């Protein structure tokens, strides 16, 4: 795995590989959701507000 610069903690080979596999799959979901949002947008349906954009408490 190439890092620039290298991390100070070893992220672990097995952890990195599985992370990328899982994340690529999940990323597809995020992409699909985004396109679906755009399609809904064409029909005037507004997306839900992302709670991380609010500065309220998260816990």
């Amino acid at each position, binding site marked *: 795995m190439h890092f620039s610069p290298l*991390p100070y*903690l070893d992220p672990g*080979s097995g952890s990195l590989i599985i*992370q990328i596999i899982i*994340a690529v799959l999940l990323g597809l979901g995020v992409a699909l959701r985004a396109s679906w949002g755009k399609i809904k947008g064409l029909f005037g349906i507004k997306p839900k507000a992302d709670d991380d954009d609010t500065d309220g408490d998260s816990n």
Partner: protein
Amino acid sequence: MATPTDGQLPASFRDPSGFLFSRNGILYRQINRAYTEDYARLMDSGLYEKLVKAGLLIPHGETDQAPAESEAAFKVIQPERAPFISYPYEWSFSQLKDAALATLSIHKRALKLGMSLKDASAYNIQFVRGKATLIDTLSFEVYKKGEPWTAYKQFCQHFLAPLALMSYRDVRLSQLLRVYIDGVPLDLASELLPFKTKFNFGLLTHIHIHAGSQKRYADKTVGPRKGMMSQQAMIGLIESLESTIKKLTWTPAGTEWGAYYEATNYSDSAFEHKKQLVREWTAEKNPNLVWDLGGNTGVFSREAATSGAFTVSFDIDPAAVEQNYQVVKKNKEQNLLPLVLDLTNPSPSIGWDHAERDSFGQRGPADMALALAVIHHLAISNNVPLPQLAQFFAARAKWLVIEFVPKSDSQVKRLLSSRKDIFPTYTRDGFEAAFLQYFKIHKAEPVRDSERMLYLMETQ
């Protein structure tokens, strides 16, 4: 709280970005030149301000203090000090869960502003003003497109694995964190979790398959593969961890919310009288830091906290601590911290050179300690002689509010019903004689409608 001796703090040595040091009792953080770009991005991107405003990051100020090691130094900052440092093996289920969700929320917010959280250690989170807050200002790095999350393994070990074990197996498994300082090894978590967790997508992937992958690639290095993980994939990963954790729950079995004090033997008036005395005595002595030892769900801790003191409410029962924390959250209480602690075997110092995480004793002394309805458990159930108990409490705080529960009390009778009474000195006189070796007794009040006594003592 104890003032650390001057010099670098022993808990802060791994990250080359900088370290904590203490000078004249004030806590500083040196930032090294290697971290210049990342620090500038944190401050200039608006991320620092956004996180501090949300209560997710400890605020700091920049100072003119000379660095502790000038060769590598770029800057010295003075972070706000957390009122009491606690560790994940002392947290209830929901405290660990909130710390996990805060970590993910910080990483998500960082990504939006071109940064990433480079480590996800549970020890970087502390409860400040009642909320899980990141205390390591140097945990951020500029996000490089295409790179995976370096802290993924650490996050799974520090948060996801213990939470899943607590939720699916037994809440006491949080104590594994006391043995494994870098979090629960995933192969161990995978082995201990029930089979049905393999049907939970999040736990299947982030724990079971993750553990298998670690084993498979244990002694292999992975060649350079740049740009493998898009930002979208990163967000997918974070959201998956977030939803997996949100779905983990724990409801104490066999305990009824709010029913704790119903099992006690004293009347409402005795209870109210005790509350009143605790409130009056804390107001009179005006302590900054109070430790309620055996605090149960925190009823008396709250009386102490009304004086404005920061009150840590320790109890052995994870269910009581969980309920206490739920009240803190509901009422947005800022100066009360519930923690799980077994007084007969308190948290030791752990980590490198026994110095990374302080023991319970090292994090004191407090200004005042409360020991209410606890002495009979220590003296009778745990066989600790009264002089040793007095010595123990004398080392904890300057002021002590302690309740003596005599043998005639039904709670003590119950403890003695199935064992030999080997405690001839366990009397009011024996108790006072033992404690007078270490304390001056300022007040001794009989608790109304009971046979108990409440004392206010000062260490000599």
